[in-house]
């Protein structure tokens, strides 16, 4: 199994708040890794470390290494903008741009110079929407605003927008928590398809979801990585008492 991301000794402070405490973890290529844990334990914070989104937050201090494909993304010679191009992100609330469906997908690849306006761009838009299982629903209304879609469609649009940039890793922060069960199912199916080509790291509060889609699961608690193993192990046979309490719902 190929290693995609290797995190060693990652610490993060928001001011005086030690939000991530010496986290080390290996994330595997073409697998889905789920991050679970009680609210405020640092899952989102950890996720944002992987594409340097935390750089946008003031008063923050990060130590440790996040090595992706053999390169520490926190090295001085790495531009965080380029990191985010390679490591895509999908957010909890669907946040399409208030532009047309087409522009939502085409905007970033055009800006990155990955495609030129015209047929190649149209192809990329179609291909990305197809990969996100949205093409059939929107192919006749590409010029309508992305915000006119339903929540679940919007989230798939956001995924299409992310994969249009052709990242290698997709980070998802509770991608289905704002969605109904049917949309959730669609997104989960999509995640399983996408893992052929991408490494996916997803945060979820939904234990069943983690059990359904994730190959590996990491349990966080108070900024510490308590346990990390294959999903089955975490849910059926966890080593740590805290993990067991959490996955069986006895936590808190």
């Amino acid at each position, binding site marked *: 199994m190929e290693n995609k991301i290797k995190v060693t000794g990652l610490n993060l402070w928001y001011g005086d708040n030690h939000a991530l405490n010496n986290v080390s973890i290996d994330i595997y290529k073409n697998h889905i890794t789920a991050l679970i844990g009680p609210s405020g334990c640092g899952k989102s914070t950890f996720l944002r470390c992987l594409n340097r989104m935390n750089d946008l937050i003031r008063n923050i201090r990060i130590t440790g290494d996040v090595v992706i494909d053999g390169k520490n993304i926190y090295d001085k010679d790495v531009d965080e903008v380029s990191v*985010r191009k390679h490591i*895509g992100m999908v957010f909890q609330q669907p946040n399409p741009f208030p532009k047309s469906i087409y522009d939502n997908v085409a905007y970033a690849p055009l*800006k990155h110079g990955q495609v030129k306006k015209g047929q190649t761009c149209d192809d990329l838009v179609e291909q990305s929407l197809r990969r996100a299982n949205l093409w059939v629903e929107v192919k006749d209304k590409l010029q309508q605003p992305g915000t006119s879609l339903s929540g679940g469609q919007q989230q798939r649009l956001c995924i299409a927008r992310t994969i249009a940039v052709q990242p290698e890793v997709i980070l998802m922060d509770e991608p289905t928590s704002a969605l109904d069960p049917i949309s959730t199912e669609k997104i989960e199916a999509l995640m399983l398809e996408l893992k052929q080509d991408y490494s996916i790291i997803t945060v979820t509060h939904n234990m069943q979801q983690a059990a359904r889609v994730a190959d590996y699961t990491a349990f966080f608690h108070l900024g510490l990585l308590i346990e990390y193993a294959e999903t089955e192990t975490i849910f059926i046979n966890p080593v740590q008492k805290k993990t067991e309490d959490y996955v069986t719902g006895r936590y808190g």
Partner: protein
Amino acid sequence: MKSDPHPFADTHLRKRHRRARWFKNLTLFAIGLSISFLFYFLTDMVVKGLPAFQQTYIKVTIHYTTQSQSNPFAALDKSYRKIISRAWYRALPQQMAVNPALLNTQAEVWALADDQVDQYLKGHYHNLKPKERTLVDHLQAKGEVVLKFNALFFSHSDSKIPEFAGLKSAMVGSVLTLFITMVLAFPLGVMTAVYLEEFAIDNRWTQFIEININNLAAIPSILFGLLGLAIFINLFGLPRSSALVGGLTLALMTLPIIIVSARAALRSIPDSIRQAGYGLGLSKLQVVQDHVLPLAFPGILTGSIIGLAHAMGETAPLIIIGMIAFIPDSPDSFTQAATVMPAQIFTWAGMPERAYIEKTAAAIMVLLGVLLSFNGLAIYLRKKFAVKW
């Protein structure tokens, strides 16, 4: 224990309702009071100002003779001397010099009447002698005295002869001044707001700048006049009374208003849009320029137009830098002496002749009309550029 007539009976409730009604009536009264003040003001302006949009003309026969070339009063019958505008007489020799073919001809024209005749016709106070009054009455009976639309009011500039005074120089001055203000304050204000909202890190410096901008917005406008006088006129030596200096001064005044409103507009754009952009690997400039600014634009525009409307109605700082001067010719460059509409209103309001009262009111109507259309424009643009979510 007293038994309640039904389970929802609540004796306290009636009192609460009464107080709510009382409060509601109080708010209604406040609105009613302000509307009636506004209504009174507007009707008063319209009643006083409307007559100014008409002006009296008298039918006369001009005799272009050699004598009238040096003494224009000779061109008309002597009896007309007091009832025709001096300004009209004064223009005759010039007319003949330009067009020598007129010599020894006659022409029947509508000549501008003296302001006293005008006021007499409009039923205002006048000081016509009985002889002149009978003449005017006589001419009017023949249909040789009429009220016509006062085109002069818009095509002429200020004059010491009331019937000849118009708003043109003030309108041109306002346009020139506001042009300078807009060209400076809009880009500077929006840039500053974008920097403070999107780029600046929160430190002592930016807090200091922020406090100063907020304070600047609260400074009495007359102080901006002093600032303009000290900096633009005394320090930089720019021409006094000019639209350039006026525009610069008003730009200083409008800048904080635009900054504050543009920042509010930028702040109202949800962070999720920025996150979406950054998450795709866009640079800060791309996120701000392509995603944040277009969304904030309607708000920024509205704030800026309101700021400009504010600048347009401003008089105090312009008095300080000398834009209150008597400007008989409308300026055609930014450096010539100019005046603006509110300053013109101020000047006319202080004139002793009765005829200026209606001019003042009419000028106020024009100014209010322009301000209202500014606000209308703001609403229209906001609708036009609004992005659906």
